[in-house]
């Protein structure tokens, strides 16, 4: 499975990668990383095999909302999951309106990622 993890914090990306590896033990994973919104979009355009995007909201220059907005007209076949510390209802609502399939609260509780992804219909 091809996955893109986008967060300006290296620590945050490390946490997500760790959880993903624990979650997909048997499957082969290709994890790409982006540290900015712009980089994320470029990587998505260059790598069509990416099926899953983990996206942080609070990033400088181009935030998560702007990335989602930019991706909307592009019709790329990628499921977008927002992983963020800003968990107010308004934030969750907004990202769903912008085409995300789900919202995961930071910090991701250990071992919970698999069931969350099943819930969101990303994994069967």
């Amino acid at each position, binding site marked *: 499975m091809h996955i893109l993890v986008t967060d300006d914090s*290296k*620590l945050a990306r490390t946490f997500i990668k760790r959880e993903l590896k624990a979650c997909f033990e048997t499957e082969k994973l290709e994890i790409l990383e982006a540290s900015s919104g712009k980089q994320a979009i470029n990587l998505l355009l260059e790598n069509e095999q990416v099926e899953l995007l983990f996206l942080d909201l609070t990033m400088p220059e181009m935030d998560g909302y702007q990335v989602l907005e930019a991706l909307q007209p592009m019709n790329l076949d990628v499921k977008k999951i927002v992983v*963020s*510390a*800003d968990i*107010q209802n308004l934030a969750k609502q907004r990202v769903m309106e912008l085409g995300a399939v789900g919202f995961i609260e*930071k910090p991701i509780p250990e071992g919970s990622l698999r069931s969350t992804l099943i819930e969101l219909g990303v994994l069967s």
Partner: protein
Amino acid sequence: MNAQVQLNQEEMDAFKEVINIGMGKAGAALSEILEGFVSLKVPEVQLLELDNLIHVLEKSVADFSSINMSKQSFVDQIRGEILFIFAPIAYERLGKILGFENLQDLTANRKSELILEISNSLSSACLFGLSNQLGLSVALKPPNMVCLEEAPDKIKAKVFGGKKPSWDHTLLIKIEFSMSDIQFNCEILVFVAEDSILPLKNALNTLLED
């Protein structure tokens, strides 16, 4: 600079992420209490020397003709002080969301009450958001007024009271709080005391190890 007070690149990155998560939790809690959308941004995290701090303060108050300021100390595994800087406040709107009534005749005491109440809520949310992520215990002391409707050039005297402080470094976390519904803005300056920077680094490194 002493290695005990410097955060390296990895530690700083971890610290910023911890702050980010902490603010997310703080924002959600504040949003519940204040019944509206809140915004908590952290534009700055840096190690400061005393002279820089004065500069930071003066910069923060420069644009306003009238400043309200409060402060609150925190103690235990990390200690320091938090300064709150408020531009002119729409007291009636603020008072309403804090459950205050009779806001027509605002005495200085009443205004102070409102300021101290919101200061305490902000510091509780932000500080506990942070300390929980770090796994460090922290307790707050009662908040105090520094000044009410004072001119910006008097700020330095009000904050330091004429004596020169005896420390060299502090770690500053600058937080911008705003609530657009009631047009309320506040700058929260969290200053971590010099002797708490090492425990902080240790907590961050513990997180990085996991």
